[in-house]
């Protein structure tokens, strides 16, 4: 990185990066707490997660504000411009992650009003994959590691597989006992939210790759059939 003659400039860039990392941390803990709330049926924790979403929105506004300021006053180019752009875009993805976590927490409050459903282990293991992805991609951002970002990017299919399996399982459950349709439908959305958090992780990975190398990752990531469009049918 070229030495900046204006020291305040590099400090501003650095502050932008750490704001993104800080926001990542809030989103990360919102997500893991929302998972814990589902798995342990912890309504209080769910309420906390919902309340905390305001901090994530605030952080995103802060990032946007800093990015606009940098662009308007410093006219960044090359690596610096990529830093500003990627921070902005990652902020948008993290804000979505926060919203999805908040949504999981909101649904938890409803799910907990019903009898426990024995599917929390599946949600837990699916959530675990997503939280590893989120952690890995935030680490990759902190250490500007393009290789690690590609690792995250190419590993999204694990979450998709878990989602497909859970989807089938929930359907079976609902067919067997119609009384579970209410909570199962909410769990279905919880699973969908986790899957989408995984997608945001790959978006962030693309940004990290772009930030470090200046090149876009080409979209030919191996993706299995789109579940939202066509529910999986047939065995095995």
């Amino acid at each position: 990185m070229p030495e900046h003659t204006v020291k305040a400039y590099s400090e501003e860039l650095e502050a932008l990066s750490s704001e993104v990392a800080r926001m990542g941390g809030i989103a990360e803990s919102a997500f893991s707490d929302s998972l814990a709330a589902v798995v342990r049926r912890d309504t209080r924790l769910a309420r906390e997660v919902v309340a905390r979403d305001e901090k994530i929105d605030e952080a995103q506004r802060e990032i946007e504000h800093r990015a606009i300021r940098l662009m308007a006053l410093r006219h960044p180019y090359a690596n610096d411009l990529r830093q500003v752009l990627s921070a902005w875009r990652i902020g948008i993805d993290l804000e979505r992650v926060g919203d999805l976590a908040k949504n999981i927490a909101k649904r938890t409050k409803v799910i907990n009003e019903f009898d426990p459903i024995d599917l929390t282990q599946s949600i837990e293991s699916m959530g675990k994959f997503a939280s590893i992805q989120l952690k890995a991609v935030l680490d990759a951002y902190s250490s500007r590691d393009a290789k690690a970002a590609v690792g995250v990017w190419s590993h999204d299919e694990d979450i998709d597989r878990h989602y497909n399996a859970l989807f089938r399982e929930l359907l079976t459950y609902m067919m067997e006992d119609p009384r579970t349709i209410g909570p199962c439908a909410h769990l279905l959305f919880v699973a969908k939210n986790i899957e989408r958090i995984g997608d945001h992780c790959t978006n962030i990975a693309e940004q990290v790759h772009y930030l470090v190398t200046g090149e876009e990752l080409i979209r030919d990531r191996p993706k299995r059939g789109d579940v939202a469009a066509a529910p999986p049918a047939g065995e095995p």
Partner: protein
Amino acid sequence: MSIDAPDPSKAPATQRGGGFAFRWLRPASRPPAMLEARVSGPMGAAGRLRDLAPVFEAIPGPAILIDASARVAAANASARRRWGLAYDAGGAVTLAAAAKGEAPSPGLPLARFLRQFAPLEAAQAVLRDGQTRAVDYCDPAPVEEHFRCTISRLQWAGAEGALLVFSDVTAQINSERMRVEFVANASHELRTPLTAFTAALETILGPAKDSEADRNRFLTMMSAHADRMKRLIDDLLSLSRIELDEHVPPEGQADLVAVLNEAVDWAAPIAAKRGVRFEIKAPRGRALVVGDRIQIGQVAQNLIDNAEKYSPDNGVVEIEVGLAEDREEAVRRSGRQWPEASRISMVTPLPASDLGYAYFRVVDHGPGIKRRYLPKLGERFFRVAREEGEPRRGTGLGLAIVKHIVNRHRGGMVVESQVDAGSAFGVYLERPAEA
């Protein structure tokens, strides 16, 4: 913290960036030239402070000193290990992985690597009002860890900062949770064999009282149920133990070639009764990995026993050991060999290692596992046989044990399976640095 504050008038005049520097607290092994010039003499206050550097280094948990703008001034050995930090040539703390690209100025912000917002917020609050705070937080991935972070204000030479000391409380939290889970699992799973056991006993005391043949039949049944209960308790205990120190990375090394050969030797006599054979394909020499030899042996044993159990009579269990450059190659070679198979990753490590992996893969030619059951493998008490209404074999804890051991080793585990063709379980673990 009660360090004798030196007289502000003797404070070094060369503090960088107008900020507050704890640079005398760097490890003694790398005395910065700047520091030498600054310290007035071994008897001065600053000299005494420098003597405390090893104390800071030796704090068992991670400890970090930050300045008033929450940038890292010093990090002890444990903190550097945990977050991949390093001191650069100028004595500033940097992220080791990012060292070549950019040296943040005027210092690495705490938020760049410690993303947990509970300690970050608390640190900000301490810097604001000076009140000492302790916060608990959880690091959820890849292995759940719980920390208590104590933050106290530190004043020195008219400048301000804060000291963050982290202690690992995972063990306490885990043991609490384990106890609850163990009791729940044990009482639930022991109920079935115990009921059968009691029923047999009542039959012997009642209807079968006078027939020796019947008595023997029921006694044999009782013995089988007692065996099952014993196995269950053994597995539960072993699972609890593994989960308890899952957050402690293992030490030592193991040679996968030797471990797999040993596991085969153990399984061979029983397998021979049904004509099941083992074939090992391994590289010449050793395939060393970082890990606890006994636990890795347990992983190999469990997977080989499973493969044997699901093999048809006179079948062959194939075992492959090999080396891989990186995580992608390890995944491909241990679990992506059959184009038609369904597959799933049971454990995925963070892709951090530059050291490469060694892997092994155990293949059976049994009935295979239906795709919808794959994500449930490794859940405690999940058995495909029970789902399919067949008589159950095993305790349903074997793969759970395997999964936790692999997770503890920060390794990976992949499964691929094809109905009516067989299943393959692959495990890959990091290689040691000097191998």
